[in-house]
């Protein structure tokens, strides 16, 4: 149920921080990055370049946070071992 004009905070302010985490920007995606765990050398270049902090660090390789990843493809472009492929949704 969305709030009416009497209920929303004044001037459209969001009276707390860090709310971007609640927004599913993954909905915007056309192509999704798929990680080949066998090829990944865990260099973390994709983790550095990702503009949406959507690369998840695991023990041996990286993974993708598909809730927030917008599918920009920067990770696939920057991966030095071609371990990331952009696949149409």
């Amino acid at each position: 149920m969305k709030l009416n004009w009497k209920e929303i905070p004044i001037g459209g302010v969001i009276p707390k921080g860090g709310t971007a985490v609640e927004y599913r920007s993954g909905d915007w995606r056309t192509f999704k990055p798929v990680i080949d765990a066998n090829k990944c050398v865990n260099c973390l270049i994709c983790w550095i370049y990702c503009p949406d902090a959507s690369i998840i660090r695991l023990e041996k390789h990286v993974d993708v946070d598909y809730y927030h990843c917008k599918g920009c493809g920067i990770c696939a472009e920057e991966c030095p071992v071609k371990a990331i492929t952009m696949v149409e949704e």
Partner: protein
Amino acid sequence: MSKTIGLSGDEAAAYAAKQSKVDVVAAYPITPQTIIVERFSEYVANGEVETEFICVESEHSAMSACIGASLTGARVFTATCSQGLALMHEMLYIASGLRCPIVMAVTNRALSAPINIHCDHSDMMGSRDCGWIQVFCENIQEVYDWIIQAFKLSEDLNVLLPTAVNFDGFTISHSMEDVKVLKDEEIEKFLSIRKVKYKLDPNEPMTFGALTLPDYYFEVKRQQEEAMRRAYEKYISVVKEYEKLSGRSYNYLHEFMLDDAETVIVCLGSTAGLVRQVAKKLRNEGKKVGVLKPWLFRPFPSKEVFKALENVKSLAVLDRTLSFGAPLGPLCSDVVATLFNEEKAIPVVNIVYGLGGREVTPGEIEEVFNLGLKAAKTGEIEERIKFVGVRE
């Protein structure tokens, strides 16, 4: 006890801002507002104020800095006019949309082209729908009084809207009058320290100006209109409280000889003084004329305007701007809409006058009154929009 000092309109604005103990001023000079910024920067240089004075590279930046400062909870003042106000246009909507109670002096001046530095109201009327409270001052005392009252009205937590205090460029900004000023401590008590509900604070992060899509934008704007309605209600308690302090009354309208008036001139700003002088002369000749000057233009005091005009038979409404291609000018449109809503149909002539600082003479005003008196008798007018003072 108040004291009397000689001040120009610009100086009065700066002096009132100083006494209002503003935290931040971000402004860019433009004729005829320049002296406001000059005087205030002198206060800063002399250590007479603790204000953070931000020199900016444009009016767009000035208003941007004012918005940022206001969101931290600061009391913020600025001043501009004409091209400067036009350059601010985008940020004016952001100031009101983010509910920043900034107070701005506007020394009304014509817009280019052709370039002109003298008075008309096309600058403010061009930004009429920017969501700011707008008042128009007739003289220098009113400029002083309104800057102070504007902070009180704007900063009310049920209002939180910016206010533009308009006064006629050169006519008011550059003439000098005796101004009765209040004591610093009286104003300090009247305004107190600005209270805030939400503010920019690193210790308690919040988002201001977030993207708001079709699912919420409309609600934010509806809420803003509610703030305007509250400003309309709050107005009277602000001016009453100020009246107790100063002895000067700013009830929504200045009414002059309206009681039995057959025809009335409605106008804003400095022209009202001249119109009243002519009205007095005509009254001595037995002609039933009156003058109505609203201080408040936004929110428009429709209820009071109708009450004041309830019994008149014709009207002339003076617009010192041109709304190209419109059926009527902005002030006249509001007056006519007010009458229409109350199902009062009388002849109304819209007088466009004084563009680019063109002087309006007592003789011209007398002709307008005579036109109104004739319309009151016949119930008809020849032209809906009449240009007064232009070479035909």
